[in-house]
């Protein structure tokens, strides 16, 4: 009996689990390799960044192999129901490991971790990425918590990585204090949800809620009320990771204190992982007619949070002069746009026409994934320009960008393309991403009037955001460079790195093959995550 259990465990693990988990395993192996290389002084022969690059490349390769092996609507749980393998989790694996390669390339160009510290820095970077991959493939509330913590704890350290700087240590202390608090609150919420529903399996949450509430799930039932409280507390932790208002206050401070490379990593990767987790959690809770009214209300509440987040982020960015701080508020605003897609998905999936709307539901998740993919290139491009200019001017103020066009056209044009895409101007990728999200919000508006307000707020804010982005463009192209300002003489390789990112943003807008291909993959990933219920 016991040996049978062990044999089944071995069969399941070696048959499926190890294969599905190979990208994460390669990243873990790379961490060990990087630390061992330093122990035996091999890092003087082989640069640590090179080892990291190989590890991240293998992770991309193996995730791509999984992408080819899986069928569109396949959804398999593995490791005893802890993780879930579907197109959605593979999408995030490829996305995150590609982003890891780009981040390592950026740190090599800017030289932020020196040779001594490189193994530490890259270990933290890889550890955080594994946590984010876990978040995107979580199928259990335990993995939800573990993934969030695994992504957060290395991030706290990376924010404080600039040693001997007051602002850096202050930023990381603030981040760790708020982050640990939010994680604790989230864990308490998980204990209530898991305890009352009697399961940790996220795909069973809605079914158990139906049983617990015995028929009509209303807030009058004390058990339903406890679960609602638990879900709210879980949302505190997720909102903190997504920097949604009112849990955004760490974001500008952490970004200003951290180096621009780390800020770029946090603004893209940790948002992406948290959105993957949010989508899985929301889908786990919905799809049962008895809980539809409650979950629609939840979706509308998320829409309201999205409105506040977008508006606050754009208004607060307006007065900033530090570029990292400005982009921190811009990150907050973009998290709001992406949250609109989740809100639209929740409203549609819990309506009585969910079956007829299945295509639109997939489209809303697809829009979110497409937005994340474009956001990767445009936001990383912007932070890369900030980091590269900082290396010459030792300044991250908007005034250091004055007359950048005369100094380095490559950086100025790359930055301009990223900014146009962040605003959402055609023909750049950001326009289509926004369009996809707004289209699904419009579909949801047919089911609930509040989504019209969400749509209007999204449209208005796109116009608002123009004003503070234009300040950067004005400084770069129209203003004279002050005579005493330091020269920015960027080598060709640094300029071309930024131009490659900018070109990707441009191509995602104008190449229909790329845009359609990516969005159809994103849509089928959306359909996989919905059908995996």
């Amino acid at each position, binding site marked *: 009996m016991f040996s049978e259990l062990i044999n089944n465990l071995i069969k399941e693990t070696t048959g499926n689990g190890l294969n599905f988990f190979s990208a994460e395993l390669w990243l873990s192996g790379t961490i060990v390799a990087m630390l061992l290389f330093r122990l035996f002084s091999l890092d003087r022969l082989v640069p640590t960044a090179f080892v990291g690059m190989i590890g991240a490349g293998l992770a991309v390769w193996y995730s791509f192999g999984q992408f080819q092996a899986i069928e569109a609507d396949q959804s398999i749980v593995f490791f005893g129901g802890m993780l879930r393998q579907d197109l959605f989790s593979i999408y995030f694996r490829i996305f995150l490991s590609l982003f890891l390669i780009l981040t390592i390339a950026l740190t090599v160009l800017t030289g932020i971790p020196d040779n001594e510290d490189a193994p530490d820095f890259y270990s933290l970077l890889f550890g955080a990425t594994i946590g984010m991959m876990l978040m995107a493939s979580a199928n259990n509330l335990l993995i939800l918590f573990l993934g969030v913590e695994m992504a957060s704890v290395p991030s706290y350290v990376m924010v404080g990585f600039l040693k001997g700087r007051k602002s850096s240590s202050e930023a990381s202390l603030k981040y760790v204090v708020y982050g640990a*608090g939010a994680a604790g609150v989230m864990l308490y919420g998980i204990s209530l949800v898991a305890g009352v529903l009697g399961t940790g399996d996220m795909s069973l949450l809605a079914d158990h809620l139906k049983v617990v509430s015995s028929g009509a799930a209303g807030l009058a039932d004390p058990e339903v009320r406890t679960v609602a409280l638990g879900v709210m507390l879980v949302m505190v932790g997720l909102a903190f990771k997504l920097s949604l208002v009112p849990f955004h206050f760490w974001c500008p401070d952490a970004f200003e204190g951290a180096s621009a490379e780390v800020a770029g990593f946090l603004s893209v990767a940790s948002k992406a992982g948290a959105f993957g987790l949010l989508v899985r959690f929301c889908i786990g809770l919905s799809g049962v007619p008895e809980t539809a009214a409650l979950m629609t209300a939840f979706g509308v509440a998320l829409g309201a949070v999205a409105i506040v987040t977008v508006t606050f982020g754009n208004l607060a960015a307006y007065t900033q002069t530090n570029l990292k701080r400005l982009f921190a508020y811009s990150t907050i605003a973009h998290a709001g746009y992406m949250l609109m897609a989740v809100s639209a998905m929740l409203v549609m999936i819990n309506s009585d026409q969910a079956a007829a709307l299945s295509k639109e539901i997939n489209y809303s998740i697809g829009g979110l994934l497409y937005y994340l993919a474009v956001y990767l290139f445009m936001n990383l491009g912007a932070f890369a320009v900030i980091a590269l200019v900082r290396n010459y001017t030792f300044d991250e103020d908007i005034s250091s960008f004055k007359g950048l066009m005369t100094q380095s056209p490559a950086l100025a044009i790359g930055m301009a393309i990223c900014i146009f895409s962040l605003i959402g101007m055609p023909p750049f990728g950001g326009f289509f991403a926004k369009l996809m999200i707004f289209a699904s919000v419009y579909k949801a508006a047919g089911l609930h009037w509040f989504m019209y307000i969400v749509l209007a707020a999204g449209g208005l804010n796109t116009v608002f955001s123009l004003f503070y982005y234009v300040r950067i463009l004005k400084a770069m192209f129209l203003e004279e460079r002050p005579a005493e300002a330091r020269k920015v003489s960027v080598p060709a390789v640094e300029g071309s790195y930024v131009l490659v990112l900018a070109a990707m943003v441009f191509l995602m807008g104008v190449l229909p093959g790329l845009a359609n291909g990516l969005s159809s993959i994103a849509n089928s990933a959306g359909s996989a995550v919905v059908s995996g219920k």
Partner: protein
Amino acid sequence: MQPSLSNYLLVGAVLFVCGVICMATKRNGIGVLMGVELVLNGANINFVAFSKFTALGLDGQVFSLFVIVLAAAEAAVALAIALNFYNNHLTIDVDRGNKLKG
């Protein structure tokens, strides 16, 4: 008299509230981290109690084991960051970190 589920949950809730109050009012960085530990342990009591009384079963105990390990790892990182802050500011009063205007 055997204590029932709600007795355990009450203890967990009291710990949670104490922890949240501690996080909100303490100005000492270490004090805030102690509040976090209280919150985590409040959740742990919930998990173990639910595992005894409800269908959650052994899952609850596995949850709490993982949380104990994670809390230790997080505390180690948080203390290192607090030490780093102390080295730069010669204090661990979180309000003295006012260079960033958040």
